[in-house]
């Protein structure tokens, strides 16, 4: 007689009522955080980061969207065709807007309008995580700021918290707006927030993020900051690097190299 594979308790009738208190309690008190997971330790040894080599990026042909397209295709990001309800995981903005604090008035103006790739900064101290009332978003040990679409109630407080505008909201059912569905990755439903997840599902399979893979110019460099010999560490060495709004204390882990 087996009630449960994990063998909660092998009980017989008479003890049933009394003993059921404990597993009953476990069910009700199942709080999912912090729950030490066997992976946590190994995750803690990693700190994923990305560097965007703007020079390389700009050397690509005008209007190159390889990385964005790859990202959106793989993650079933819908294209609603309007600015109002736009959903984007990765996108570009002109340099002067991304780094408004950079004084461009008298410097060379040729990269003022150049596109800069934007995505979730996967902050070390992500504000969005603080605000979520249901812990639908949280930071993993390896630095990835995760979204649990199952749990999002759509209050959009995380969007108010994010200073980078990295989060999008599903203003309506996204499925009809997805050109070709990738069955490997779920779509979202209306009413939840979504954002770039550093291709966490690909990392798990030992692959690099889709955008990095798609970039023919090798302008995107991805790797583990905690490994001294990782590509991303090498890319950051001896270069002038920028982060978006480091003054806000969010410690972004997407770097821009110029």
């Amino acid at each position, binding site marked *: 007689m087996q009630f*449960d594979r994990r063998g909660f308790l092998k009980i017989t009738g008479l003890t049933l009522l009394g003993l059921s208190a404990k597993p009953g309690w476990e069910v009700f008190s199942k709080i999912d955080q912090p729950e030490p997971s066997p992976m946590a330790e190994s995750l803690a040894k990693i700190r994923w980061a990305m560097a965007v080599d703007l020079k390389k990026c700009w050397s690509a042909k005008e209007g190159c969207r390889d990385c964005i397209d790859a990202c959106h295709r793989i993650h079933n990001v819908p294209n609603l065709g309007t600015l109002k309800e736009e959903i984007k995981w990765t996108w570009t903005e002109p340099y002067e807007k991304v780094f408004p604090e950079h004084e461009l008035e008298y410097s060379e103006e040729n990269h003022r309008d150049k596109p800069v790739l934007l995505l979730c900064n996967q902050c070390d101290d992500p504000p969005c995580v603080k605000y979520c009332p249901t812990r639908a978003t949280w930071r993993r040990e390896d630095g990835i700021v995760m979204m649990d679409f199952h749990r999002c109630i759509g209050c959009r407080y995380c969007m108010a918290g994010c200073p980078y505008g990295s989060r999008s909201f599903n203003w309506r059912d996204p499925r009809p707006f*997805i050109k070709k569905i990738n069955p*490997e990755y779920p779509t979202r439903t209306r009413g939840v927030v979504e954002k770039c997840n550093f291709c966490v599902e690909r990392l798990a399979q030992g692959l690099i993020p889709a955008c990095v893979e798609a970039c023919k110019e090798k302008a995107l460099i991805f790797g583990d900051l905690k490994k001294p010999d990782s590509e991303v560490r090498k890319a950051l060495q001896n270069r002038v690097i920028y982060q978006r709004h480091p003054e806000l204390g969010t410690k972004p882990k997407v770097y821009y190299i110029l």
Partner: protein
Amino acid sequence: MYDKSKIIPALVIFLGLATYPIWHNTVSGKARYVPKPELPTDKAKKECVEPKTFIRVNHKTLLEDWKFSVVRNGIRTYQASNKKAYTISLNRTCMNCHTDKTKFCDQCHTYMGVTNKCWDCHIYPKQLSPGPLAMRGP
């Protein structure tokens, strides 16, 4: 016996209600219906992640645990009781063998009057064939 005209009809109604399931099932002709979820014929796909008896009872819990494990803990392999490791994925693992949701999942779910929301986001393989998604409309 007194008040026959009221009590007899009331008792008939009671009897009707008490035996209603029998009539219902006879009329629907499904008294002997037994759901038969379609199992994969492929030999390689014969073995499930857990024994059939366990899956029949606990698949919901297992899937919940899987969801939790992947999304919250980042653990994507499942150490099954048969000592094998499986990728935790509704699509790539479960639906890889049980390709047709309507012939597998829905069989028992309909039988038991259960509704679930898995497919609001997740995509079952057969769903992609000729444009069923567009049916949902904006």
